[in-house]
């Protein structure tokens, strides 16, 4: 039987700002302290995704101290409906406050798995190589971002020994893992997150530690 699972892959990402929004405070946004697994998966998906593979996050290292910034800005408060004649943005303004992270950098530890979409020509080394080539060249399908589209992420390969995380120990409480689409309606899944020596260990999505 051929191999279904890639070796551990590392990626360094960083950016000026980030907002990994907490669901309970997503209107007046407040970020989680650390990148969530779903945000990390989003970044990997932006760089390489095919129907043949699914990404799994195993660990996130925090490379800079957690710093905050409070910003207030104008957004829009309604959604466009196909039945409406559109709306006038100036009338639908909503001021929203946000507590964002500032000057962040992370090492994402992940692997991918071949899934149902894999054909006979697909194999694990093929995608491993593709991933390595793409991050080397800085290629992506869409610009990866740190939680919100407006906070673009920079990325580079992590060659050799991964950088040392900041020595932060913190109980982060229940953190959003990702959405689960199997049930009748999409439901969020949560896991208990701890930062130990700047490292967030992420349990497998289908393990008992993940609730939802």
């Amino acid at each position, binding site marked *: 039987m051929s191999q279904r699972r890639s070796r551990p892959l590392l990626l360094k990402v960083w950016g000026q700002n980030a907002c990994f929004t907490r669901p309970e*405070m997503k209107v007046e946004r*407040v970020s989680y302290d650390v990148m969530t697994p779903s945000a990390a998966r989003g970044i990997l998906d932006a760089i390489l995704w095919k129907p043949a593979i699914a990404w799994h996050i195993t660990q996130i290292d925090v490379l800079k101290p957690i710093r*905050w910034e*409070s910003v207030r800005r104008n957004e829009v408060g309604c959604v466009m409906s196909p039945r409406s004649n559109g709306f006038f943005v100036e009338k639908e303004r*909503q001021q929203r406050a946000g*507590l964002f992270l500032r000057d962040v950098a992370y090492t994402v530890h992940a692997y991918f798995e071949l899934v149902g979409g894999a054909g006979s020509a697909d194999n694990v080394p093929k995608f491993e190589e593709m991933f390595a080539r793409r991050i080397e060249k800085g290629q992506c399908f869409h610009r990866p971002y740190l939680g919100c589209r407006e906070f673009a992420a920079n990325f580079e390969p992590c060659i050799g020994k991964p950088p040392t995380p900041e020595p932060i120990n913190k109980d982060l*409480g229940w953190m959003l893992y990702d959405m689960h689409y199997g049930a009748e309606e*999409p439901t969020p899944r949560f896991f208990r997150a701890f930062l130990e020596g700047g490292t967030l260990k992420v349990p497998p999505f289908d393990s008992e530690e993940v609730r939802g």
Partner: protein
Amino acid sequence: MILQALVGYYRRISLERSFGVAPRGFEVKEIPFIITISKEGQFLGIDDTRDNAGKKGARKYVVPKSVKKSVNIAANLLWGTPAYVFGMPKPDETKAPEKLTQRAEKQRQSFISKIRETFSEPVTDRGVAAVLHFLEGSERNKVFGHPLWPEIQETGANLSFKVMGENILACQSDAVAMAIDSANQEAIGGRLQPCLVMGELDVPSRLHAPIRGVRGAQSSGANIVSFNLNAFNSYGKEQGYNAPVGAKAEHAYTTALNLLLAKDSRQRIQVGDATTVFWAEQAHKMEEWFADFFGELPADQSEQDNEAVRTLFLAPRMGAPPLEDDYTRFFVLGLAPNASRIAVRFWYEGTVGEVARNIKQHFNDCSIVHGPKERDYLSIFRLLVSTAQLGKAENIQPLLAGEMMKSILNGTPYPATLLSSAIRRIRAEQSKNDANGKPLQNVTYPRACLIKGVLVRNARYYDTGEKEVGMSLDRENANAGYLLGRLFAVLEKAQERANPGINATIRDRYYGAASSTPLTAFPHLLKLKNHHISKLESRGEAVNLEKQIGEIMAGVKDFPALLNLQDQGKFAIGYYHQREEFFKKRDARDGEEDHE
């Protein structure tokens, strides 16, 4: 993080004080008037629970949680306004009386049907049965003849019921609690989902209880967790289902936060536009002291005997363990209103030790030589108010206060605007007189504290390698700004000595120019100086002043054309230090004379 910490606080206080914290489905509310009825539902009287005829608010009761209303009619269970209880609206001149009465009648109907819906027929609870009997019969009309009634209708104050002989309100009985619980279960009937605060399975709350007491927010309360427009929804979910917070956690965090924000809370301070609350994981003295560090001190308490500051600095000397070693966790939450929602302005999570260490660092950074009548440590409020126009609290820049607090708690450099606003105030007030026409100081003690603090902190944080400004006059400091500040003080002194009792000194006209563009001001000032010194009667004094000027001038190579903001700050500190030095000398001289 925030909600978790609040739930933890709720657990703590519900153990510490068993009443005053409402159980699930209830809330604590001021009820000014209690209607007493007999078991048969006859009207007996009205109790006025207000202190001091309504000036200080009324007694608080645990009552069934209020229903959210905006324009709709929705009654609370067994308590409400006269409009709901009796169909008697609060008079409002802007609205037609018939409409008001019609609406009130509907409100009354809804009040009764709310009770009927909540309790199954026949109503077995004696208290509830008595209330129903009273409300549905003609007995209720007797209320309108009571001497308190006109006032009740005028104020639209909340009413509730008590049955004679019982020591609780009719809405506080066990039967009511059970009915509320089962009504909630039915109403929700929803799927269990893991609560994102506690992690346990629970029914997510659709709407969260409102948070009251955030300055500037609606008086009826606003929400932290709220999805009040459809742009905020995700995955087709509505309201609270967007963020599954279980009913238990929802009750716990809203109750805790409302308690922290309550009117008489000692754990709330206003920092700029952010209403700030703070609490510790376990009961801790820091909860009392924190307000003393940051808040406005009560008028009757002098800062000299500020217990908080004293403990911070003197604890080791008094044999108490230093606060810096305390690992009790401490939380600070700053909230600001935003259109019926509440936004988190800042959030701090640390230990009491860290807080103590950082606050102590702040006081050390800001301390500077001062006159004997001034206090050693000024509260942060006193410092900030010195940057405000007319010294008024409402003129403090709204964001400045919050940023300042954040930088103190985190031990990071003070906000950049702090230096510029202190310098701006100094220049704006260079020629201000008091009510008697005597000139007022512009580089005041609090401003000097602030500027010194900013400079010291920046120097440490960015490691500029420049010589720091110190507590008091530093003759070694060769910074051009600092030297020119000292020179300016000596020149002013020469003028004062030449013209004793003078009303306007060179500071009135030249402080701004001297501190920002020395090249344009100082040559002229030095010419004036020659004139002043020649007027002095005492030759000794003249020589002395010339010597001081010469000493300072030795360090000045050229007069710079411009001084940047940092150097303008150093100018202010140099000026302040030199002036304090003069006072010190004079005080010492005065002291000697006394001895003779």
